[in-house]
């Protein structure tokens, strides 16, 4: 499995994502100005502050040349993971429903959060037993998941809400405790917490590794 991690000016967690994806396969960085995705099997849009997050988090990155290729790649069923700023970019690009608003406490906040795996049968959570809790750090200023009520109802009915904050963990005020959603086709997934920062017990927890293992399973499975 070969994973490509996008690198925008202002990306901060791209090397971390490369390290994490490197634990389950090959991982390369993809420059924002290049359209060539180098035949990767999966794409990660990483955390950080792409283009300084000017205008609105993720609003400028969606117009980059590499994102044009990612939209096409996702349209063809390619596996795409957006983490934090990457989630914001995917929402801005229309690959995922909803939007991320400034945190309810109006501050950038770092916290280790407990997540509930709502949908264990996805390309991003298949390595998690049903009902499993994941302990993963979150760190952002705009992570309050928002969509209108009909959309939220539809997401829940269609099994697109993949991860929820556990009680008392939803510091950013996300509607219906949503921490991560996938698209209707199931090949694009975004979440605010950082699974790439939870792949080594020495620096935290290893719960985030499940996300990368699941992606590996999805890609290798598709190949078989």
């Amino acid at each position, binding site marked *: 499995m070969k994973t490509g991690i996008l690198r925008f000016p202002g990306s*901060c967690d791209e090397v971390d994502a490369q390290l994490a994806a490197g634990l389950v396969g090959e991982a390369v960085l993809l420059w924002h100005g290049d359209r060539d995705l180098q035949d990767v099997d999966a794409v990660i849009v990483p955390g950080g502050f792409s283009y300084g997050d000017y205008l609105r988090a993720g609003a400028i990155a969606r117009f980059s040349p590499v994102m044009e290729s990612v939209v096409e790649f996702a349209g063809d069923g390619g596996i795409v993971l957006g983490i934090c700023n990457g989630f914001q970019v995917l929402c801005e690009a229309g690959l995922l429903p909803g939007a991320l608003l400034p945190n309810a406490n109006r501050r950038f906040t770092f916290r280790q959060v407990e997540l509930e795996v709502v949908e264990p049968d996805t390309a991003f959570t298949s390595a998690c037993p049903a009902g499993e809790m994941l302990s993963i750090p979150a760190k952002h200023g705009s992570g309050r998941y928002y969509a209108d009520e009909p959309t939220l109802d539809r997401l829940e009915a269609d099994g697109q809400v993949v991860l929820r904050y556990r009680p008392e963990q939803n510091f950013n005020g996300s509607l219906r405790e949503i921490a991560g959603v996938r698209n209707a086709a199931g090949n694009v997934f975004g979440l605010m917490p950082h699974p790439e920062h939870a792949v080594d017990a020495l620096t935290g927890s290893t719960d985030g590794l499940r996300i990368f293992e699941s992606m590996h399973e999805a890609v290798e499975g598709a190949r078989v």
Partner: protein
Amino acid sequence: MSEQLPTLKDALALGLTEAEYDLVCEKQGSPPNQVELAMYSLLWSEHCAYKHSKKLLVTLPTEGPAVVMGPGENAGAVDVGDGLICAFKVESHNHPSAVEPFQGAATGVGGILRDIFAIGARPIAILDSLRFGDIEESERSRYLLEHAVAGIGHYGNSIGVPTVGGEVYFEAAYEKNCLVNAMALGLGPREQLMRSAAAGVGNVVLIYGASTGRDGIGGASVLASAELGEGDDDKRPTVQVGDPFEEKKLMECSLELLELGLIVSLQDLGAAGLTSSACEMASKGEVGIDIDVRKVPLREADMEPFEIMVSESQERMLCVIEPKDVEAVRAICDKWEVSSAAIGEVTDTRLMRIYSDDELVGEMPVEALVDDCPIYDLAPQKPEEQLYDAPPVRLDASAGFGDALVALVGSPNISSRRPLFEQYDPIVQSRTVRRPEQADAAVLILPNGSALAASIDGNGRRVAADPYRGTLGVVLECASNLACVGAQPLGTTNNLNFGNPEKPHVAWQLTEAVRAIADACTALEAPIVGGNVSLYNEGASGPIYPTPVIGMVGLLPDASRAGRLGFVEEGETIALVGPFKPSLAASELSKLRGEPLPDGLPDIDIEAVRAAQIAVRDAVREGLIDSAHDIAEGGVAVALAECALAASLGASVTIDDNGDAWQALFGEAPGGFIVCGHATAIAQFSERTDLTVIGKVTGSELRIEAGSALIEVGLDELRTSHRALEELFQ
């Protein structure tokens, strides 16, 4: 030139003295013009020339086996093995933060990060040391705290460098003059280490990064080298405005240029902007530099030559490169969307020549600018009486031992810093083995499995009570923090935050503090590799507490053995280690009781403290003990509470009261550690160091007996009190 020459009056307004102005005229052979006077006034300011501190700073130890680069460069560096160096330095941004806390603190972080990548290291961690007035009384101090913390987070988070540690204290002496010191660590290959000396006559001088605007003009001389006073809001235009996105690109661009070997020498533009950077590079390289200000990318086209030379616009770097590499360098800059321009040339004239197109608008000998500023002797004198007012009474004299513990745990200087550090990203770059509140020092894993440890400390109140012993205590506490995670000190950085050194009592504080740093760093074999001096920190109500801030970096061989401060397991044995002789003098308890500062602190046996540090360090490294915590503010009782709260595990402990239970429970001194481990391990530890077994980890309350005194407090009550700062951030 047709313009009228500036006069003595202009020189005085720019911060020079009459004698200094006369000396400038003598060095120039004639009265300086506007560009020249602006450049002299900056380079001869306290901020750039260290004219009141240089004679003291040369007494500090700067050499040691690990030191790769000592003071004088953008940052110091120590060898951390496997061909890697760790660059580190602390710097202050006090006056800008007092005037505009968000941008002042943000650009303080930006400035120290540029110092790190200027020497070829990737910034990997930020720590900060903050001082504000009495937040229980002062709305302004609460405002400064909130905005300075937001500014630090804004810059560090956005640029992708983790903020892994720090400290903050609140004392009335900082009401008019808060302190914002930021320390950064960087990691890089030893062979990529870059110096700032310009070299190679005919080489090109190239500026890259943000364009140059009118922000921050005169910051070094007007703002940083004078006391604060009324009407400081008018000085807001002298505070720079930061853009972390610009610096993120600048950092990646610089590191790529360095990796490709395209740079001969490199310097960031900080205080005094292009003036300071270009002159420092020319001085160190013993060359001259010609600069054409019309080639500098500008934000406003009509800027005067002197404005371009002194602007403190952020996120800019100056480098010397070979003419053949100009295109390659500019291509890398373009890739990162960083603007660049060749603005000058290295010459053999030993002159700084400033051109505006073809017109020569300033010409100065480099030596006169950089080396000929008068260096002053201090006239230290111990003041006859206490300089500082007694604090307000916050704890009733009739309060019992338990009430005192709860009050201390919830006091602004001891309560949990979580509401602050939660605004910082501590984990980006995937090296953080110990997050804030998990251990006494930050721990960052290195590629070979060893780890760096870093700590920053200061205690102005104790230094105010006794500048020599108070400062010894600060340096020792830093090393104790490193010992608690298992690290041996490699080097030290310091930021000397003091009042006006021209006043004898401040000169005395400064002299005594530097003497203590020298003695402690020598004994600890932790030489000074760089630092900063921030003087004139006073307002109409007097000087700040003398506040030497110490940053220390150490190494531990195995990151997986890094120590933690919290108790680990029910039933484990708790012991008190070290030559700990508690005293209530200048303690947090005496502050809460409203007692005035004492004149002097008890003697400290540096060697005995060091021996205890080594014992604790070795025991942590071997995995013999499971937790280690340095006893600091609030004494044994508070240290036990912190160990208990970190783990949500109670304890039952009995300590000797030595005739004074208050002193035994809440007295402070360097050299004490609370450790825990299995009974057999603690017994084994006791065979090689003096320790006292004081109790066990048990239950969900903290029970401490000292003679006839008894404290019994539930962890829930302690935790509620410990969260006192949260109210400020609702």
